């Protein structure tokens, strides 16, 4: 008889690191959806999700633990840090849209500290000065050779979303950048 084995999910990222200038922490588990919808569906989707989907480039909207990030003219990343069921919420809107559950496709690294922008700029070409990339600003961009979604949650804190399989690379590059941020 085979023994029964209980398997637990292994987190993609468990390391902590960085430097005094830029601290790196894996973000807690969250539910995420990649949402595509036309302009006429936005009011119903916003009501169903409980957060107003932003329509201006590089902007986001938050309501409690739930955040909606503008990615493209008809594309949003919606994530919920309390792991609420976003797929069910989107489906309850009753309007034409496409929602893909990407909760486990992405992982996120929180980069915080006075050198957070320097650490990210070690691999990301975007201007992260507060005037150009304010708090609440967000953008899909690149970090080295990996695509990331960057979300500024505070003046000295960013959330870096990346694909799960890219996370060791992203974490490693951010660690190098964080080590350099003090100089």
């Amino acid at each position, binding site marked *: 008889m085979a023994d029964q084995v209980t398997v637990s999910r292994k987190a993609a990222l468990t390391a902590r690191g960085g430097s005094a200038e830029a601290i790196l922490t894996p973000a807690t588990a969250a539910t995420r959806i990649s949402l595509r919808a036309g302009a006429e569906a936005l009011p119903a989707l916003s009501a169903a999700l409980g957060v107003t989907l932003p329509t201006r*480039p*590089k902007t986001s909207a938050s309501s409690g633990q739930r955040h909606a990030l503008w*990615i*493209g*003219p008809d*594309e949003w990343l919606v994530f919920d840090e309390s792991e609420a069921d976003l797929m069910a919420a989107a489906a309850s809107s009753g309007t034409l849209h496409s929602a893909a559950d990407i909760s486990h496709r992405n992982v996120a690294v929180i980069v915080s500290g006075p050198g957070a922008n320097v650490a990210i700029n070690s691999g990301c*070409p*975007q201007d992260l000065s507060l005037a150009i990339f304010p708090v609440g600003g967000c*953008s*899909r*961009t*690149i970090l080295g050779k990996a*695509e990331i979604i960057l979300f500024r949650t505070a003046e000295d804190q960013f959330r870096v979303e990346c694909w799960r399989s890219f996370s060791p690379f992203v974490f490693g590059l951010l660690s190098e950048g964080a080590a350099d941020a003090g100089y």
Partner: protein
Amino acid sequence: MLLIYCPYCEEERSELEFRGAGDAHIARPENIADITDEEFEEYFFLRQNPKGLIFERWRHIHGCGRFFNAARDTVSDRFYTTYKAGEPKPDVSDILQSEQNKGAAK
């Protein structure tokens, strides 16, 4: 770093976020099943590859994901203008005239 203005993000971004996607304003023949092999070859394969001003499609693949069109100089790599997909092709003489005016103002 070469900066490209994305008409959807309304901002200049690094070239690293973009990918070129060939010539712009290539209209697919509506009677594609009826045209001759030579006509298909001309539509599908043959491009001008001019020295100087060219109209191209670009995609902001590591950004908003949109295709847009750009007027670019193949010698200097300078982007004269970018505009959203579906918008009419800008007039060549207008672009070159405004470049001359810029040059004269300097």
